C-alpha cells in the first residue's frame, strides 16, 4: 500500500477522534437550543467552570480564597484534604445543578417570551460573568487535571497496524476513552429524552412552550433540568480537554470548535452533533494533511468553517436540523 495512503488512514482515524471531542462540546449547545431555543454562548465557559470546580474540589482548594484573604487578612488556601475523583465529579455535578438553578432563577425566568437575540445576549453576559466568578473562585493559574484517564499512544493499535502496514498508527488512549464516553453519553441522552417522563416533557417544551404549559409541564423545572444536563455535558467536555492541556482559561475557547459542528450537524439534533463533529474532524485533518503543506499549514480553523458553509449552501438547517417552513 502506498505510504501516503497509510498516512492518510492514520489522519482519518485521528480526525474521527478529534471530531468526537468537538462533538462533546457541541452537544451542550444542542441540548439547550433544542429545549429552549437559546443559543448558549456560555457553553464553553461552562466547560471551563466545571473543570475548574472539579480540580478545586479534588485538590481541597478553598473557593474565593483570594477574596477571603484580602477581606479578612487571613491566609487560607487549602482545606488540607484531597477528594477522590469520582466523589469530586459528583460534587461538581451538584455545583452545576446549582448553577443551572441560578441561571434559571436570576436570568432566564425574567426573559421568558423575549426575542431570541435578547436571550443570546443574556448568555454572552452570563459567559463573562461566569468567567469572572471562576477566576475569583479558583484563581487563574493552570491546574493539572488527573482523574485517572489513560493518555499517550495506544500500543496495541501501534503494533497491530505496524504488522499490517509496516507503519504503526498513533491513536491517543485519551481519544479512545473520549469516544467511548461520547457514545455512552449520546445513548444515555437519547434514552432519557425518549423513555423517561422528564425527557418526554423536555421534548414537549421544545416543540411548543405554550402547549406544554397547558398540560401542566413546569417550564421552570424543565429549563433547570436542561441547563443541568448541559452542565453535565460541559463537565465531561471539560474533563477531556482539561486532561489534554491542563485546566486554564483558554478552555472556554473550545466553543469555537463546536460552532462549525453545529452549523453542519444542525442546532437541534443530538446525532447531528456527533455526525457533524466527525465530518469536521476528518475534513479538517485530511485537508491539513493533503493541502496544508502547499499553503503554509494552519488550515484547520478556517477550513472547518468553510466545510460547514459548503454544507449550509445545500442544507441551511444543517444535516439533521429541523426544516423550518413558515407559511404566510
Amino acid at each position: 500500500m502506498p505510504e501516503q495512503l497509510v498516512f492518510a488512514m492514520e489522519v482519518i482515524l485521528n480526525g474521527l477522534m478529534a471530531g468526537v471531542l468537538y462533538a462533546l462540546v457541541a452537544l451542550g449547545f444542542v441540548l439547550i437550543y433544542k429545549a429552549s431555543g437559546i443559543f448558549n454562548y456560555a457553553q464553553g465557559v461552562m466547560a471551563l467552570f466545571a473543570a475548574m470546580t472539579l480540580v478545586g474540589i479534588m485538590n481541597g482548594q478553598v473557593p474565593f480564597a483570594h477574596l477571603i484573604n484580602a477581606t479578612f487578612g487571613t491566609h487560607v488556601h487549602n482545606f488540607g484534604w484531597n477528594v477522590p475523583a469520582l466523589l469530586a465529579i459528583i460534587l461538581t455535578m451538584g455545583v452545576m445543578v446549582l448553577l443551572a438553578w441560578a441561571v434559571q432563577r436570576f436570568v432566564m425566568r425574567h426573559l421568558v417570551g423575549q426575542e431570541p437575540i435578547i436571550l443570546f445576549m443574556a448568555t454572552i453576559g452570563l459567559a463573562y460573568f461566569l468567567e469572572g466568578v471562576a477566576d475569583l473562585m479558583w484563581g487563574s493559574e493552570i491546574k493539572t487535571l488527573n482523574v485517572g484517564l489513560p493518555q499517550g499512544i495506544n500500543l496495541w493499535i501501534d503494533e497491530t497496524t505496524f504488522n499490517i502496514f509496516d507503519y504503526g498508527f498513533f491513536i491517543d488512549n485519551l481519544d479512545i476513552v473520549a469516544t467511548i464516553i461520547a457514545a455512552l453519553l449520546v445513548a444515555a441522552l437519547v434514552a432519557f429524552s425518549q423513555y423517561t417522563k422528564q425527557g418526554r416533557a423536555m421534548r414537549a417544551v421544545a416543540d411548543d412552550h405554550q402547549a406544554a404549559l397547558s398540560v401542566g409541564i413546569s417550564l421552570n423545572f424543565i429549563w433547570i433540568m436542561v441547563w443541568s444536563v448541559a452542565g453535565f455535558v460541559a463537565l465531561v467536555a471539560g474533563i477531556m480537554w482539561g486532561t489534554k492541556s491542563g485546566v486554564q482559561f483558554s478552555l472556554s475557547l473550545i466553543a469555537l470548535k463546536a460552532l462549525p459542528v453545529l452549523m453542519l450537524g444542525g442546532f437541534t439534533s443530538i446525532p447531528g452533533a456527533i455526525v457533524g463533529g466527525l465530518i469536521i474532524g476528518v475534513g479538517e485533518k485530511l485537508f491539513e494533511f493533503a493541502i496544508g503543506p502547499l499553503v503554509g499549514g494552519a488550515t484547520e480553523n478556517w477550513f472547518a468553517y468553510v466545510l460547514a458553509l459548503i454544507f449550509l449552501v445545500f442544507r441551511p438547517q444543517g444535516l439533521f436540523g429541523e426544516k423550518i417552513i413558515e407559511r404566510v
Partner: protein
Amino acid sequence: MKTKLATLALGALMAAGPALADLVIPSLSYRTGPYAAGGIPFADGYADYFTLLNERDGGIGDVPVNLIECETGYNTEKGVECYESTKGEGALIYQPLSTGITYQLIPKVTADDIPLHTMGYGRTSARNGKVFSHVFNYPANYWDGASGAVNYLLDENGGDLNGKKIALVYHNSAYGKEPIRTLEELSKKHGFELSLLPVDHPGQEQKSQWLQIRREKPDYVLMWGWGVMNQVAIQEAANIRFPMENFIGVWWSGAQHDVLPAGDKANGYKAVTFHAVGDDFPVFEDIKTHVVDTGKAAGAGDQIGTVLYNRGLYSAMLAAEAIKDAQAANGTGDITPGMLRDAMEQLNISEERMAALGMPNFGPTFQVSCDNHGGPGLVGVSQWDAGTKTWNLISDFKPTDGEVIGALVEEDSSAYAAENNVEPRCN
C-alpha cells in the same frame, strides 16, 4: 485669614493631587483571559520588585515608585487604551509584555518621548537604535533566541548540523513567525533542513502537527508558543514519545505551568533563556522580608522563583537601574521620560552591579549604546527536571550569531526607516 485659607487650600490640593515627585511606572499587565497564567507571575514579579524598593529603600533615589497597573488581557486594543490612559500621569517607561501592543506603541512612544523596553519580545529590529530611538530590547530578542537554540544544537553535535532535520512548531501569529527568517538563514549557513509547522490560536488542537512530526522524524523540534499552545505541544510530544531533550522552546515556552500538566513525561524538555531560574538569590530574601511577610505582595507570594516571576522582576530591575542612572546623570530624583531614555541608551549592567542588587549572575552582562539597543544578545539554555519540579540552567549565557542577526536587523530596520521617513541617528 486670607493667608490661612490659601494655606489650607494649598494643603488640600497637595493632599488630593498625585505626589509630584513620584516615579510613575505603568504596568500593562494581563491577569485575566486565556494568557493570564503567564501574565500573572510576570506582573507579580514586576510589582514586587518596585514594592521592595519602596519598602526597603524608600523608592529609587529616595523617590517612591508609583506603579499603575492596567489590565490589557493580552489584547492589543486594550493595551493601547492603557497607554493612552496612563501616559498623562507622567509615565516614565512602558514594558507591555506583548508583541502586538509593542508594534502599536512604537510610533506613539517615539512621538511622546517615552522609552519602551521590550525584553525578549516585540519588534526584533528595534535593536537598531539608529532607527528606533525610543525602543529598547536588551538583553536579548527573538532572533537571539533562535540563534541561541541553534548554537546550542551545534554544541551538542560537535559543531555540525549538516543534514539534520529541525522542525519549528510556532504560534501562527506575528510573534510566532518572528524566528522564521533567522532560522532560514541559519539553515542555509549550517546545512540543516528546516520544516515549519504553524499552530493556529489558541493551540488546543495540534494533532495534525504532531502526527506530521511523528511521520517526518525531525532530529530536533523548536517551539515558539505562548499560552495553552505550550502545554498541549509538550503533552503531544510526550504522547508520540518524541525525546524531550531534543525539544527546545523559546523563553515564552519555558515556564513551570508549561510543563507541569504533562507531569513526568515533560522531564528533559529545554528552553532558551536570558535570565536565571530558581530562587537562590539574596534579593528573594529581601522580597520575603519586606514584601511578602508584610502582606504587600502583588500575589499570594507563592510565585517567587518561578520563571515568569523572575522575568518580571528582572524587567523591573533593569528599569530601576536605568532610573538610578538617569537620576545620577541629571542630579535630580524627579526625572523625565526623556532623561530615562538617555540613561537607557548608556545602561551598563555588570556582574558587580547585579551582585550588589542581590542578583549575582541573574542575567548576562551587557552595555547598551546609541546604535545598539539590544545588547550583545547572550542566550542560555535551561532544562526541566520533572522529579524536583525545577528548571535548571544547563549552559552559560553565550553569544549568538551576530553576523546573521545583524544583517537581518539592518535589513528590517532600514525598511522601517524608509517607510516612516526616519532619519538615522547616532552619527
